[in-house]
């Protein structure tokens, strides 16, 4: 991993990790922690919708595509229908053009292929204007 790792604690950004895989949940949670971003973790799209229905809101949502009960495409669409304006970044191993296109059209602001790393996460934050790389 090259370069300095930015500390965004002062920006008080919040994030939601949406992924059904326990390993990914742990890694993505820790990656955000390392950048100073407080974050919660849910296991599927339905839980992501439910947590927003309960009144929680996040600056950034890291959305996996393949999940049981409600997948990432369905959840992204639903959140946008609900008027959720948080930045949503799709994070998935699926990188076929058609699949990415469908995911983006559901309402994503950005997309990264797994595995997620610090530099990919910084890239997401930069693309979504949460962080200016110098």
């Amino acid at each position, binding site marked *: *991993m090259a370069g300095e790792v930015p500390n965004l604690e002062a920006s008080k950004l919040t994030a939601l990790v949406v992924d059904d895989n*326990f390993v990914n949940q*742990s890694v993505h949670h*820790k990656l955000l922690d390392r950048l100073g971003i407080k974050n919660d973790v849910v296991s599927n799209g339905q839980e992501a919708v439910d947590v927003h229905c309960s009144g929680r809101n996040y600056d950034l949502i890291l959305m996996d595509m393949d999940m049981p009960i409600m997948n990432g495409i369905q959840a992204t669409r639903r959140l946008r229908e609900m008027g959720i304006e948080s930045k949503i970044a799709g994070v998935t*191993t699926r990188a076929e053009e058609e699949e990415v296109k469908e995911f983006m059209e559901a309402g994503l602001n950005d997309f990264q292929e797994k595995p997620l790393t*610090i530099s990919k996460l910084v890239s997401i934050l930069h693309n979504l204007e949460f962080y200016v790389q110098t």
Partner: protein
Amino acid sequence: MQRQVALIKQSLFDQGYLDEQFMELEELQDDVNPNFVEEVATLYFKDSARLINSIDQALERGSFDFNRLDNYMHQFKGSSTSIGASKVKTECTMFREYCRMGNAEGCLRTFQQVKKEHATLRKKLEHYFQLARQAGPKETARRSK
């Protein structure tokens, strides 16, 4: 002792068991979570054992639901990718190819390879982490928060 730990780790990379994603995880270790990589590895082996069991049962039934098998393996591959388990990931990819082709024999054969690589990695990482713990915090905690 620390040199021995470093050499063992290097050999895991040199022999292709691990890739750069493992190093990414090591970079996340700090004083608060000095054993983060071992914790994630433990989670991985627990989760992957469950998936192996599910696939074993599905294959034993004899009826090849390739979609279902592919879904299981998609999860397995995802976890393996996230931890940097390079050889396991490669075998998972092969299995998925055979699923796509509807090739039952290929699936059976490849699944044995998946299990073999998984078992080998588990043994090697357990040995590595045991030595790393004995070597002390220098090798496990990478940075102060």
